[in-house]
């Protein structure tokens, strides 16, 4: 075995020759880095599909009345946009791509705890995606319930609900398997000397995320099974005519889906916590506080699901409780923002693309977070419920938060993952377009929502016309930015200059190995003596 290790010494994981050749060497690989990239390519594929659906919706809203599609098509498109973006892109997004690739590198391990299970979870993900998307091509047409599959419409509609629901169920399995894998990896495989509080923050957030994944996803799984049961067997749990209660569905659904929002945002916060100290050349401010607030978000996040249902009919006590808890969960998020800003205070900042993404993350995340508080207030919520305001808030958090962090992470770790450097000027140009487009797209929706424009309608009254035009133009600017970024990265992955081990001056363990890393990651498992952000 010693001999084998020496022959592998300087071969990157991309060139490593295993049992299989060609594409099989990737899709059957148990190497966490290859699986991370597999996830990356599939997720980007689905992301672009979702983006196109989003563009189509915005195009429809360019003018009142029927613009390019009829109401039924619009319903199908916003459902697909939601299902694809939530279940296929944002939930697996950062944990599956950067978690898989970076977690073992950052904690000084050679792989995750269960490499074969890791590969299985990618396959389960692909299978779930195929099942979910098969609803598009079957008779009956794609589902039109919105991504929440609310009862009773979800078992009354004649569209293809079953594949969508089963697909989401299968995707849940993939999520659970990844979660189990990460928890065991973090517990068992940290490098010698890396105590819990010497672990970098991205693994910490992955740890919190993994717990949410395994504790919340089963509830969604069983809820989706009940929807399938309603459709196939008429069991009647959510059907008032059989004695059931549709509100119960909403409870069960949000018991999962609210924590799922934290599955989306926690790893994004982790990535930002890596980028900001690196580009500030300064150790992160309040490391332990960030860790504790991560765990606090993961914990309190379980008890706020009711704020999605303020207008559905709940007792007064339940309303107050959920509202107060919703305000509580904002505190740890705000603490993190203060920590990130404090890290930049009196720092020597490198202005590179990942840093731009990180600071713009702070900007949009603040808007998203504060508008969330507006929605968490009971009286305001009654007015804003199911308006464009909610859509704007959600996109500021999930697209602005998680999406910007994903973009930041890809620009940050690109040299490590592909071993090449991209053109930073072009990356910055792409970011400018993206940032301006993003705000042009979603800011008007806050005003539309306050003015009373409902969400999920393909039509609107004339007085909403102006902001909708601005919003649609914003979607084109954003798309331009996205294209610049993608072209830049594709070009860099093929022809970019070779990257050094540590192009940004990062101090965490992944910057001590080759770019791209060798198959074994570390020829010798490192011994950790210092904290993760040992700058000055």
């Amino acid at each position: 075995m010693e001999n084998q290790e020496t022959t592998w010494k300087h071969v990157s994981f991309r060139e490593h020759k295993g049992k299989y050749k060609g594409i099989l060497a990737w899709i059957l690989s148990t190497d966490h880095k290859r699986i991370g990239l597999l996830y990356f390519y599939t997720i980007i594929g689905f992301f672009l599909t979702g983006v196109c659906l989003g563009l189509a919706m915005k195009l429809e809203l360019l003018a009142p009345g029927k613009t390019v599609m009829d109401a039924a098509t619009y319903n199908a498109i916003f459902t697909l946009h939601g299902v694809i973006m939530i279940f296929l892109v944002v939930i697996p997004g950062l944990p599956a791509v950067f978690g898989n690739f970076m977690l073992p590198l950052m904690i000084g391990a050679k792989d995750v705890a269960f490499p074969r299970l890791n590969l299985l979870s990618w396959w389960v993900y692909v299978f779930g995606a195929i099942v979910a998307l098969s609803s598009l091509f079957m008779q009956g047409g794609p589902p039109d319930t919105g991504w929440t599959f609310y009862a009773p419409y979800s078992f009354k509609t004649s569209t293809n609900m079953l594949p969508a629901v089963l697909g989401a169920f299968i995707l849940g399995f993939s999520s659970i398997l990844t979660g189990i894998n990460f928890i065991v990896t973090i517990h068992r495989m940290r490098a010698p000397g890396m105590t819990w509080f010497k672990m970098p923050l991205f693994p910490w957030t992955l740890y919190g995320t993994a717990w949410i994944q395994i504790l919340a996803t089963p509830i969604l799984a069983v809820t989706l099974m009940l929807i399938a049961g309603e459709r196939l067997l008429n069991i009647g749990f959510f059907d008032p005519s059989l004695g059931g209660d549709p509100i119960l569905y909403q409870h069960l659904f949000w018991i999962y889906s609210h924590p799922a929002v934290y599955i989306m945002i926690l790893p994004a916060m982790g990535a930002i916590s890596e980028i900001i100290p690196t580009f500030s050349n300064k150790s992160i401010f309040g490391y332990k506080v960030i860790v504790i607030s991560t765990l606090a978000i993961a914990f309190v996040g379980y008890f706020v699901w009711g704020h999605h249902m303020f207008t559905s009919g709940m007792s007064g006590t339940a309303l107050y409780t959920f509202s107060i808890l919703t305000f509580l969960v904002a505190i740890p998020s705000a603490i993190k923002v203060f920590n990130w800003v404090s890290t930049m205070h009196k720092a020597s900042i490198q202005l590179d693309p990942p840093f731009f993404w990180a600071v713009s993350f702070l900007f949009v995340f603040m808007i998203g977070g504060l508008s969330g508080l507006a929605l968490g207030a009971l009286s305001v919520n009654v007015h804003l419920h199911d308006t464009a305001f909610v859509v704007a808030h959600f996109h500021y958090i999930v697209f602005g938060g998680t999406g910007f962090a994903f973009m930041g992470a890809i620009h940050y770790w690109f040299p490590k993952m592909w071993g090449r450097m991209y053109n930073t000027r072009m990356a910055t140009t792409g970011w400018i377009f993206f940032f301006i487009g993003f705000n042009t797209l979603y800011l008007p929706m806050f005003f539309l929502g306050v003015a009373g424009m409902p969400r999920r309608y393909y039509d609107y009254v004339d007085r909403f016309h102006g902001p909708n035009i601005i919003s649609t133009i914003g979607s084109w600017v954003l798309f331009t930015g996205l294209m610049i970024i993608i072209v830049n990265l594709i070009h860099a992955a093929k022809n970019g200059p070779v990257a050094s081990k540590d192009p940004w001056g990062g101090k965490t363990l992944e910057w001590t190995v080759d770019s791209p890393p060798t198959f074994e990651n570390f020829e010798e498992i490192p011994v950790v003596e210092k904290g993760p952000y040992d700058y000055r």
Partner: protein
Amino acid sequence: MDSSAVIQNIHRDDEGSKMGMWLFIFTELLLFAGLFIVYSIYRYLNPAAFALAAEQLSVTIGTINTIALLISSATIAMASSSIRLKNKKLTLFLLLVTIIMAIVFMVNKYFEWMGKIDHGFFPSSPTLQSLGSGDTLFFGLYFFMTGLHALHIVIGIVLIAIVFIRVKNNSITDNNPVLLDNSGLYWHMVDVIWIFLFPLFYLIT
């Protein structure tokens, strides 16, 4: 040069595997927890109908099934011990008893379900609809929860059969018993869920 095999040899971590299994068991318990929530809400809303409907279920069959599962849980735990005592023959025998008990459970379940369906007690049947919404919900829950549990029994049978084969061809031995232990953990979980299902559906009348 089998690269993945090399990695697995280096990283064999029985503690880690068991931890993974425990986490998986949490997820399974939470899967059923969602259904227990649904059950408790509808029981609270329809106390009389649920109490009456429960009398339709046969306590005898339920008891036999409970005993079968308890025996099987004991035998698989004993199999975990006997493999450590290097008694392969006894291990195989105990695993076989476990599988037989699981099959006894399934056969019983089959007759029980068929009996209910013959009497017209199945989801959305006219009989149930004439009885009212409480009975509809009770039997909906009954079929859904015991059905999901039965699915876990079937998965367990397959799993234990794999363990049986692997013990037989010596790929599970006293120095590598973690798959047997994990199957045992899974099986106990299935057993524990039944221990809750049995009183909730059969005994509270």
